[in-house]
């Protein structure tokens, strides 16, 4: 059977599963549409949240980022998991107790203000729409590589599948498909990793293999990796970083941003009890950790594999002749994600760090004329089974897994967008008298609209898509997270303080990002070049979310203290979200 047929079977079977679930889990009421009826088991919700959260970026890109950056890119591992500690203790259980349907719901009620609700809706939509573009393009890439269709056709197929279960099933359909998608993606991620870990370290558990021994040389794996990359002029894989302040702030921004993402927060509205929301956050992190503990192992082993492929006799000997390159390099060359340019015309593939001045004399002595191989970080996970010579069915599995990761996150984001439109804009602000049936119809129509918008943007991605994902984290960290936290932990912060704080956090973050990346990301409009020398105190634009959050907190407190206290019933509301007692009744509003 051809590889194409196998891929088709795996991806097709996973789609049949998702559609089957969609038919079984149709939403009959707005409560089912927005929060899956509020009766999801905490472990099930943990699995669904893990799939909701782990996007194409986690599945496809993260291991590649770590492979390229080594220790310095551990920020992604800590930042994208540490946020769950904040979510579990500072937000999720109290918002579950509040017992309504959306994140702007809480901000609008707690700060008794239409302006605050609208600000929250605005932040939510900017953040979720930018995120969803990445998922659609990610699904498109996976389709085009594995199913021999164009990327555009891939995006249409992805949109059609999400449409089926999200429009009819709402949160209920999404929850159970996300559980299935989690299983598909974690199996797809783990199996090749186990094989590779066995081949390289002899240990079947990749996280142990990472700190284990490299079979071929008998040296510890990380020591061996440091040695071979050093011989090619790269930084040691485990080398420490100089700019610790930026590393701390970037990690903190990712953590706060994660905790402030509405599509993740609303998943915790689906569990039956407040105590369940606490457990569920723990289960979520366990399910995420299965992938996040595997990723750094995959990263180091794939990096070593790549060097060994290019330098079969070791990095001090001759590089691989282009004519002898393995099959997988040829396949990926066709996609343009691997490129080779014979700069010194010797027919061999030299890969080294040509930006390292200290290494230049060595390179010259070896007759090298610049690095010749460009490998896109994103192919690492997708190409892994081919690099390790694994059987064709593993490749089919990876295809289904990558698509599952993109679809599950896209569906969660689309639900956050559509519920903000149908519940916060239509039901609460435009037409409070709308019937249950009318709101349900509005929810389905907004969902369909959101999918059409996401498809359009996926087909015509703005040039700045990659940077915009960082913007989404910055906005979540600087605007929504502080407002939600102060709404729970302070009785003194009032409507004016919250709105001023959110706007101050949002605007300061946008200004800092736009200063270096261009106004609205239009190239050439940036006022300062995006280089570490220009950054204020060495803080990169991607790390600014944490500072935006501090500005938000400070402004909100200052303005609140200068103005009147919130009314008594609001202070009572804060008291009530702080204790679990009496949560059941609140949901049926």
């Amino acid at each position: 059977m051809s590889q194409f047929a196998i891929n088709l079977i795996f991806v097709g079977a996973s789609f049949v599963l998702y559609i089957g679930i969609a038919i079984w889990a149709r939403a009959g009421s707005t409560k089912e549409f927005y929060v899956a009826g509020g009766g999801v088991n905490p472990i099930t919700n943990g699995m669904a949240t893990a799939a909701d959260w782990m996007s194409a970026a986690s599945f496809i890109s993260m291991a590649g980022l770590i492979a390229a950056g080594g220790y310095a890119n551990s920020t992604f591992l800590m930042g994208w998991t540490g946020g769950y500690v904040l979510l579990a203790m500072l937000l999720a259980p109290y918002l579950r107790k509040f017992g309504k349907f959306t994140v702007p719901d809480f901000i609008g009620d707690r700060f008794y203000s239409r302006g605050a609700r609208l600000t929250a809706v605005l932040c939510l939509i900017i953040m979720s729409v930018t995120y969803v573009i990445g998922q659609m393009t990610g699904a498109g890439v996976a389709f085009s590589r594995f199913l021999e269709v164009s990327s555009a056709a891939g995006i249409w197929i992805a949109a059609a599948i999400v449409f089926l279960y999200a429009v009819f099933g709402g949160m209920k359909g999404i929850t159970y498909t996300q559980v299935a998608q989690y299983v598909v993606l974690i199996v797809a991620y783990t199996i090749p990793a186990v094989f590779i870990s066995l081949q390289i370290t002899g240990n079947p558990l990749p996280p142990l293999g990472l700190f284990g021994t490299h079979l071929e040389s008998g040296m510890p794996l990380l020591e061996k990796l440091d040695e071979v990359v050093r011989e090619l002029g790269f930084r040691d894989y485990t080398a420490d970083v100089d700019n610790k302040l930026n590393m701390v702030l970037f990690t903190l921004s990712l953590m706060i941003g994660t905790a402030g993402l509405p599509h993740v927060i609303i998943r915790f509205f689906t569990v039956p009890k407040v105590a369940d929301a606490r457990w569920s956050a723990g289960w979520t992190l366990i399910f995420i950790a299965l992938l996040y503990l595997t990723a750094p192992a995959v990263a180091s082993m794939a990096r070593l594999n790549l060097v060994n492929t290019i330098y079969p006799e070791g990095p001090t000997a001759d590089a691989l002749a282009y004519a002898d390159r393995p099959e997988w390099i040829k396949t990926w060359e066709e996609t343009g994600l691997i490129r080779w340019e014979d700069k010194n015309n010797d027919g061999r593939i030299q890969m080294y760090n040509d930006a390292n001045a200290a290494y230049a004399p060595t390179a010259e002595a070896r007759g090298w004329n610049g690095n010749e191989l460009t490998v896109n970080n994103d192919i690492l996970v997708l190409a892994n089974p081919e690099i390790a010579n694994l059987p064709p069915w593993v490749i089919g599995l990876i295809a289904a897994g990558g698509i599952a990761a993109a679809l599950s996150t896209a569906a969660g984001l689309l639900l956050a967008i559509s519920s903000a439109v149908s519940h916060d804009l239509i039901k609460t602000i435009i037409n409070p008298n709308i019937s249950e049936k009318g709101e349900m119809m509005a929810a389905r129509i907004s969902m369909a609209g959101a999918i059409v918008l996401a498809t359009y943007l996926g087909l015509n991605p703005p040039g700045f898509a990659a940077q915009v994902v960082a913007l989404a984290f910055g906005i979540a960290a600087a605007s929504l997270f502080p407002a939600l936290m102060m709404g729970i932990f302070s009785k003194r912060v009032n409507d004016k303080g919250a709105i001023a704080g959110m706007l101050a956090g949002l605007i300061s973050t946008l200004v800092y990002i736009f200063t270096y990346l261009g106004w609205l990301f239009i190239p050439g409009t940036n006022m300062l070049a995006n280089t570490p020398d220009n950054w204020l105190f060495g803080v990169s634009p991607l790390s600014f979310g944490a500072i935006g959050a501090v500005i938000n907190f400070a402004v909100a407190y200052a303005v609140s203290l200068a103005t009147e206290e919130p009314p008594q019933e609001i202070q009572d509301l804060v008291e009530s979200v702080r204790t679990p007692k009496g949560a059941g009744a609140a949901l049926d509003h």
Partner: protein
Amino acid sequence: MADDKQNAAAYWKANVRLITWSLVVWALVSYGFAILLRPMLAGIPVGGTDLGFWFAQQGSILTFIAIIFHYAWRLNKLDKEFGVEE
């Protein structure tokens, strides 16, 4: 009613204390051991590298899981002690 209020305030204080300690551990393993204190821990070898690297790529994630489960277990107990559970 006054008792209820006092009870709720005491429960909240206990919760905030628990959160504070949990966040101290959270910050210590990630910002501390994995980043700022890594040079100090450089002498402790772990599988071909040092303890700080281990915390950056595995230790902090494992600790985060432990923190959340410990918090959920302790707070669910406090819920019952203060009689505020659902």
